[in-house]
């Protein structure tokens, strides 16, 4: 390698041929990007406001009184022992979920998860009808104590949830 080629081998000279300096100040592209981002987030917020469901504990839900009728809500509570009514071999269960002494009646027409039993905490989502019964279209069982302290997602995801992945 002859010395005459040395200058050619310097990297600095290369940057000039290949790269251009970044302009000082904000590139218009950035402004567009930021605006797009802001619009996107605003839209997402609005959408979230629309599709959110109020989440109550059973006693708070009951405290709402007649306001609750006709609303779609998510209610958390413990299944009252002895309150589960339903026929073996048939679908459809009615039970009461309670929190701090107050309880609300829930009817669920679909298959309950395996882990459903009296005395455990569940979350029911659905509309409250005129008889003040929560007509649930989703019942999620919180994991019983046995699972406590398990590794992330080691716990069963019990749900009658909408399980659809991305595309529906």
């Amino acid at each position, binding site marked *: 390698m002859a010395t005459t080629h040395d200058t050619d081998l310097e990297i600095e000279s290369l940057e000039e041929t290949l790269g251009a300096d970044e302009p000082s100040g904000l590139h218009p592209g950035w402004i567009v990007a930021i605006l797009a981002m802001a619009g996107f987030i605003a839209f997402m917020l609005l959408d979230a406001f629309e599709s959110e469901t109020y989440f109550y504990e059973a006693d708070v839900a009951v405290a709402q009184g007649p306001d609750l009728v006709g609303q779609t809500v998510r209610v958390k509570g413990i299944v009252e022992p002895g309150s589960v009514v339903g026929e073996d071999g048939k679908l459809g269960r009615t039970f009461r979920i309670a929190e701090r002494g107050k309880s609300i009646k829930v009817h669920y027409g679909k298959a309950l998860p395996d882990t459903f039993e009296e005395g455990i905490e569940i979350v029911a989502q659905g509309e409250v009808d005129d008889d003040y019964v929560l007509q649930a279209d989703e019942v999620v069982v919180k994991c019983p104590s046995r699972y406590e302290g398990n590794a992330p997602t080691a716990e069963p995801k019990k749900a009658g*949830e909408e399980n659809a992945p991305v595309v529906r």
Partner: protein
Amino acid sequence: MIDNQDLGTFALYYALVVCLIGTAISIVAGRTGSQRFVHASRFASYTGAGAIFVAGAVLMHALLTHDFSIQYVASFSDHTMPLFYLIGSFWGGQAGSLLFWTSVVAASMVSCVYIYRRSYQDFMPWVSAVCLAVLSGLLMILVFGSNPFEGFSIINDPTTGKGLNPLLQTPKMVMHPPSLLAGLATMTIPYAFAMAALITGNMSNAWVKAARKWILIPWLFLSIGNMLGGMWAYEELGWGGYWAWDPVENAAFFPWLMTSALIHSIMIQERRGMLKRWNIGLMIASFVLTIFGTYITRSGLIQSVHTFAQSEIGDYFLALLLTVLAVSVTLFLWRWKDLKSDQRLDSPASRESAFIFNNWLLVVMTLVVLFGTMWPKIKEGLFGQEVAIGPPWFNRWMVPLGILLLLLMGIGTIIPWRRTTMAAFKRQFIIPIIATAGASPVILGAYWYGRGAALGVTPTPTEASYAIITVVCCIFAVTTMIADVGRAMNARMRKHEESAFEALSRLFIKQRRRYGGYVVHLGIVCAFVAFAGNALKIEQDISLDPGDTYQIGDYTLTYEGLTLENEPDKDIIIGKMRAERNGKHVHDLRPGKAVFHSAPNMPTSEIDIKTSPIEDLYVALVNHDPRTQAAAFKIFVAPFTWWFWLGGTILLLGTLICMWPTRDSLETLRPSPGVFVRATAFGALAILCVTPLAVLTYESHTSWGSAARFERMIGQEEIEGTNEPLQGKERAPGKTEQNASGANAEAS
């Protein structure tokens, strides 16, 4: 005999001290470059890791020898558990899973420090420093927050443990947490490289080059973990789906999305010296999100169906999170100016910009999921009213984003670097576009008239159009890939006068990263096919009396009654059902319910899934009336779900191809493993990746997957045809679940 409790606790304390000292030594080494300190920092890493391994080995020993004087062992294992599940209970609880996490960080640090012991001299002390600092943080949580070696404070020495929940006693559940944990833990290494680059101020591509293989590792583990979790939910839980946008699932999904973005954007930095800030930012975000995910799930901050012990451990994680965030952001801002791009984007129609759009999409997806996960909490903080955001919201946002991503995947495969001239565009795009335009109607039509229409489902216009667009994009992505590989093969065949097969295999050997990436893309395409299939999914909860028939899709299901089997450890109720299609018998279904004597109130479902590439027929026994034999069932016909598992498997294999070390990188592992060892290792890993899918498919066509394996033969003669009852006959009566699950364990 040494006391497990004392030895384990001592090992943890010792590891903490070593890690703290090691961090200090490494910082000195990094600042002075003194070889003595560099040497010491390297060996301090080994020492710290060694001590952590001792702690891990002690816990494992305690579990295997049933040392119930340790609280953890008593809470998560019992005498009757088979070895496989005993090993699984190592990470079955909070403290153990944290120790496992720490061990994986330590192990990956050791391998990284060893592999790069002679290269990247400027980075390695800092890499050790960052890893050791992270380890110190984790060890502090272990030592002060939840010590796995804690004994009983009150005199309550039980002679038998509580055991593991029956639902969790499946091989998939044993492997799912460690893969996720390993994914979260191994994220430390690439993060350490990014930090090292920031600290040393070496803003060249060196950190990217050093870290690029290490980024694939967490990505691989997260993929495996999420996939196994989904499979378990689908097969064991009677849940019908594999993803429900639950906060805990989302927590594992953020880092996966972020890492996917990073894997793409580092290619741009390597090639063009662009996106330096972006890459560092993404790397920091990925790492922070792993800790954040752990924090929100462990602290009980977010309502989830997954429950965790709501201990003070959340506070520790919050402290760790804030420290990491503060340090990273400070360093990042400090070096902001130095991280200027070498070059700028030449044209929006270039491969660079396709990659950048892909990155934006992935980041936006992360933001959407993050927002959906956090919004209930934010809302509660702002308005005091707790809310919930359901899967429909997630689907509404993620579906269009996903489709865009799929489209970009096709474009990004073939678009040229820097700028696309009209001529280049024609050369590259004409064939795939024509092929897609030709193949899409054929494939869609063939499916619809061959099968889809018979299911009798009319999806909503939105669902239908999303599904069709998804399939078209999938076809486009595949054609671009085929076109590109074909072109490369041609080039090789011309240049080196090779046969087509030779050229193809050479391509994969010489360019593993690129073509491995293509394989991963193929896996993603398959997964999207499965998502599209959901548009035609039928889901029914029904209750039937014996002799009743029920029509779902074009299947006619006849319920034949119940049988009860008594096993030593449980009773199994089996619902017998036969499925006919067009008047022809296609399946015998045996969904069941197992009631463990140890947990009589918690029956577990034995779901029968008949899977095929076209569709899954899925039947779960919900409940039954022993008197009238009436029973309720949950039934699905889910088209293309099989493709999701296939996609996952292909994705894993593709990642393995990308990660497969080159001869050069093996040089650093002297004495280098021979070809035989490499081939064996690769083969074993590949088999491991394929196993879940293979087992699923096998189970679905034999008695293994359903309650049929418990069926005794008396009174079975009336069932005609098929081999399945015969297989059941060959099995000795009174076969226990332990044997069966043991065999499953071996298989996976």
